[in-house]
């Protein structure tokens, strides 16, 4: 069973529908016992880091997620779920879970304007992943594959060893990060067509060593 963590952050049903579509069983839950029992965990979300962390703490999910991480079970972060596993987010000046060392930074609008005149915030739409380090969940990735992004902030891990993939949008930013049994994407695999579903499918088969 895959537990999709529910912390009032946007539309979790789209993740559940995608997981069901590729043939796996999942539940949407904020019950720490269910999360403890699950074989795998998906930690999704849209919204803002501040309110996300508030809900996570209020529901006692911070400890549940940290425990799941130390137990070694595979965890997939998506979008805000990816950002709040870092130490800190510039969005709402938020202290986060600190599972991966580093900060969540905002796209600096002016810098992006200079580099690529007229780039918009949020970074919304389809973009590519440049693989920096091989990872099982990206084993089907081809150069021309694109994924759906919608965000104004991105994770910046301190240790380059945690960088799995990057994406270009005015700057090159980390779009897939990973460490031990956690892998996290800034894009939405559940909204990224065939290639996104392939990533979810790989996650469902992934055995972190």
């Amino acid at each position: 069973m895959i537990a999709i963590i529910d912390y009032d952050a946007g539309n979790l049903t789209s993740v559940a529908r995608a997981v069901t579509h590729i043939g796996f069983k999942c539940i949407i839950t904020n019950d720490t016992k269910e999360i403890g029992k699950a074989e795998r965990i998906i930690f999704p979300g849209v919204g803002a880091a501040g309110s996300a962390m508030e809900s996570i703490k209020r529901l006692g999910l911070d400890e549940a997620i940290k425990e799941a991480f130390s137990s070694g079970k595979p965890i997939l972060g998506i979008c805000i779920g990816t950002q709040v596993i870092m130490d800190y987010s510039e969005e709402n000046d938020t202290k986060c879970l600190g599972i991966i060392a580093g900060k969540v930074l905002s796209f600096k609008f002016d810098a992006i304007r200079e580099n690529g005149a007229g780039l918009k915030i949020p970074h919304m739409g389809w973009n590519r992943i440049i693989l920096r380090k091989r990872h099982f969940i990206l084993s089907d990735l081809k150069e021309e594959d694109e994924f759906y992004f919608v965000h104004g902030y991105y994770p910046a891990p301190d240790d380059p060893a945690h960088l799995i993939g990057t994406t270009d949008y005015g700057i090159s930013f980390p779009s897939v990060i990973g460490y031990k049994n956690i892998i996290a994407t800034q894009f939405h695999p559940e909204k990224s067509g065939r290639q996104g579903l392939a990533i979810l499918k790989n996650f469902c088969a992934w055995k972190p060593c």
Partner: protein
Amino acid sequence: MLSKRIIPCFDVRDGKTTKGIKFKDNVDIGDPVEMARFYYEAGADEIVFYDITASSDKRDIMIDVVRRVAETIFIPFSVGGGIRTIEDMRKVLLAGAEKVSVNSAAVKNPEIISKGAEAFGNQCIVLGMDVKYVGKSEKIPSGYEIVINGGRTFMGIDALKWAIDAEKLGAGEICLNSIDADGTCEGYALNLTSLISENVGIPVIASGGAGKPEHLYDVLTKGKADAALIASMVHYGTYSISGIKSYLDKNGVKVRKSW
């Protein structure tokens, strides 16, 4: 680099798709769930539904359509039309849409943008704008005026000012429809599109007037649009999404080529 998005758009009435020409003489052309599947598999980057159901007691038909679409396609889609309250937004988003689009409701009550953005995040809130060229005046400095009711009611609001205000209120994207160009198949309103796109920091989807791939090229380059809405040019099989995308790609516009 980010791809320019190609977005087929359907009008849905009482659970069936239609294509309106100049907002009149709509005819049924199919099942929205099957059409969504068709375009998902054909390489659409996103899909837009407009619910033009007239009677409010039939609104739940659309919620059921949204739910079935969400089980069928795994790309973003938005729903507009008839969204007047935060509760309307919540229903559509919970049924599985990625975004909701507000148009006349936001003109009458701009607070719906900020309240929606607060409740669901800016990225969920698309401002739909119907715009008509009226000539520059003191009241309408850009020359483009906001209209509602399919272009029949002039609101006395400058389109450029409204776009900038809506961004401040928390809109995450603008879907900009030119009433002058809509249904003509003679090309998007390029001046209007670049004017709005250059003056806001959020993405702009160009709408109205697409008839051939060259029109998309123009609006995505000269028009500075981030995405282009298409309807009859693909609905009637005149062009395919992959054909449009290879034309754009050949001419140096970055598009998503693999799906």
